[in-house]
């Protein structure tokens, strides 16, 4: 994992001092609310329904155990003892006081953490696959590139006041896309060209919100050394020509659409031609140096524990199910990737208490070289667990509430905070998630349904990624009452797609039944090897409509 040097430490400290000065001036009335707004947003501070909300950056989802313990302490000292893992691999606090925020940022800086650029119209946290570095099929570990992008984008003097927020995601696997790169402003797919050289396929102009779009390819192959100059060219074109007259048309996706992807690409290439060989061009040494931070932990030479696991599975059916769903194949023999699910029915998806944060830290130290990863599905990953300790780990986490064996199933719901916390909400989202989880408590039935992404947002802003859920639920307001619109067929993976709206919206109490009917259609119509999305793509939306509105 990346470790700060004196330069990073100095800038982190200077940032805290700067925000302390800004907060003082804001409280003294020297900065108007409007002037303070982008400054506090770029330090992660929103003002929300109950109190300010602080979004803490977890660069590409990586956390060390000491950082988790610090987060636990911060939630205890400054908040109400719980935190929320977000769909952008960050951590959010719901109740800090404005005047405490500089102190919180100082406490974070001590453990090499910050809240830089987690909100506001700037380049946000770069996200990636939570299985980076431990999965067998990736082309190369994407995290060194994520850290290179993080450093380049941090306090970038030209791009702190963009038309709108800007998000970059990187993916390195050829078969899967857990980073949802095609719904980001820039999605970078690591590839090798025919000559075997490493580079990126560049997607620009994806995004959710009001006008959901899947990002088109604007460059098939960008050599790795050109990464930053090319990003700089894209950002400069966007900064100059992105719309600023209408907040809802200000994302880069609108510019790409207006110019067409080809027209946009031409403008970027023209800009890039000027700066391609500027000092911003990466050097092989810089990339090598960064890779040095993401080396393998001291794995032991092990064999796969196939026989042992087979015996344990046979003896314990619950363990067997957990292993099938929440444990993934590791590139090293004898190791496994474990996802701790934060989706226990009755707990808002992604919420953890201070105590649980400490438990996760202890688990990381005991089982996984002291590190965890946050996923955009709002779960937490222990990436390097010995197979012969899986049973022991499972026994430890079950009473902690991290063992719900529903990863990637219908009840592994992505859900925004919604009307319970968020001032922009049209409707509550957490109670809908809970009602659906209760309706589908039978695990055998859930497993039989296979992988289904169910995503819920409380309004158009789409924090819960409803457009790209196989089943999407969106809270809408009808004459002051909360209703829910359902869409089908979305995907955030390699085959990214925006869901289609099923029809008129539903009352909250009807939602579990509506989902059940949709699932019934799938169960009736599927062929043996089909997942939900396959069936939907084959039969279309009509049979679902007919059943739900019958």
């Amino acid at each position, binding site marked *: 994992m990346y470790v700060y040097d004196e330069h990073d430490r100095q800038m982190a400290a200077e940032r805290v001092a700067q925000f302390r000065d800004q907060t003082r001036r804001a409280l003294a009335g020297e900065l108007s609310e409007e002037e303070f707004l982008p400054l506090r947003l770029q330090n992660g501070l929103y003002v929300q329904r109950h109190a300010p909300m602080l979004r803490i950056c977890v660069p590409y989802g990586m956390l060390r155990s000491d950082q988790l313990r610090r987060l636990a302490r911060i939630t205890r000292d400054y908040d109400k003892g719980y935190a929320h893992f977000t769909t952008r691999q960050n951590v959010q606090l719901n109740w800090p006081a404005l005047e405490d925020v500089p102190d919180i940022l100082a406490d974070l800086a001590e453990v090499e953490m910050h809240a830089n650029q987690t909100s506001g119209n700037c380049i946000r946290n770069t996200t990636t696959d939570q299985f980076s570095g431990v999965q067998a099929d990736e082309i190369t570990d994407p995290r060194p590139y994520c850290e290179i992008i993080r450093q380049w984008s941090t306090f970038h003097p030209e791009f702190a006041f963009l038309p709108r927020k800007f998000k970059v995601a990187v993916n390195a696997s050829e078969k899967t896309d857990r980073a949802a790169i095609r719904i980001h402003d820039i999605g970078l797919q690591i590839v090798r060209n025919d000559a075997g050289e490493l580079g990126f396929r560049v997607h620009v102009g994806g995004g959710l919100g009001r006008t959901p779009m899947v990002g088109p390819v604007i460059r098939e192959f960008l050599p790795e050394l050109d990464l930053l100059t090319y990003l700089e060219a894209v950002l400069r074109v966007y900064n100059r020509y992105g719309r600023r007259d209408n907040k809802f048309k200000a994302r880069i996706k609108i510019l790409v659409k207006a110019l067409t992807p080809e027209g946009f690409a031409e403008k970027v290439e023209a800009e890039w031609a000027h700066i391609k060989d500027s000092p911003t061009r990466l050097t092989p040494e*810089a990339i090598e140096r960064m890779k040095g931070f993401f080396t393998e932990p001291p794995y032991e030479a092990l064999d796969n524990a196939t026989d042992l696991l087979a015996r344990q599975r046979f003896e314990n059916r619950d363990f067997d199910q957990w292993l099938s769903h929440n444990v993934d194949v590791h590139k090293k023999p004898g190791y496994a990737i474990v996802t701790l699910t934060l989706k226990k029915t009755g707990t808002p998806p992604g919420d953890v208490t201070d105590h649980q944060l400490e438990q996760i830290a202890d688990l990381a130290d005991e089982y996984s070289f002291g590190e965890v990863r946050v996923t955009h599905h709002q779960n937490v990953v222990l990436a390097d667990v010995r197979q012969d300790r899986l049973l022991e780990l499972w026994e430890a986490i079950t009473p902690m509430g991290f063992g719900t064996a529903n990863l990637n199933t219908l009840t592994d719901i992505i859900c925004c905070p919604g009307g319970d916390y968020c001032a922009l909400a049209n409707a509550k989202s957490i109670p809908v998630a809970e009602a659906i989880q209760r309706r589908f408590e039978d695990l055998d039935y859930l497993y039989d349904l296979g992988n289904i992404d169910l995503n819920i947002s409380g309004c158009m802003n789409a924090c819960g990624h409803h457009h790209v859920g196989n089943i999407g639920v969106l809270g809408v307001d009808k004459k002051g009452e909360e209703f829910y619109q359902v869409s089908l067929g979305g995907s955030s993976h390699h085959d990214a797609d925006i869901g289609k709206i099923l029809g008129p919206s539903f009352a909250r109490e009807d939602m579990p039944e509506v989902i059940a009917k949709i699932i019934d259609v799938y169960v009736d119509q599927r062929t043996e090897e089909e997942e939900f999305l396959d069936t939907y793509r084959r039969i279309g939306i009509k049979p679902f409509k007919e059943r739900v509105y019958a």
Partner: protein
Amino acid sequence: MPDVINADGTIRQDNWAVVPRPEDGESLAIPSDQPALIPADLWLAGYEHFTGNDRIGVWFDSHDEPEIIADKVNELPLIGVNFPRFVDGRGYSIARLLRERFGYRNELRAIGDVLLDQLQFMKRCGFDSYALRADKDINHAATCLNFFSQGYQAATDTDLPLFRRRAG
């Protein structure tokens, strides 16, 4: 006379006027007793008349294209870039283009909604004077220009991004 902030945070007085774009049918109201910045396209339109006059400079609005005077920038003693609202970040790109692409060497001034907390970004993008909005505390400028002792990126102020300095 209004105060202007220098890149090192010191304050000096100067009397450059910013001449607004004339309304349709009106002509450019250039003051006779002060040096003045005029809209860049109008300077270009009256090029024969204006060039060589060291009391006439140009200003760009945030949606203007500095490319129009790319080959003539060093004929100007002063260029202003307007920030109509401080959250409009186009001026930063304009400044870098003027400096890094067109090689502008003379004074580059941020005008308009210029506040304290953006000064260091402006400096890094090549501005070397700042006409702070009048209601802001000009004595705090030196602090705000120097919140950070270094940056991660190459920009107008340095050819050495941190990744190159680390290698050295």
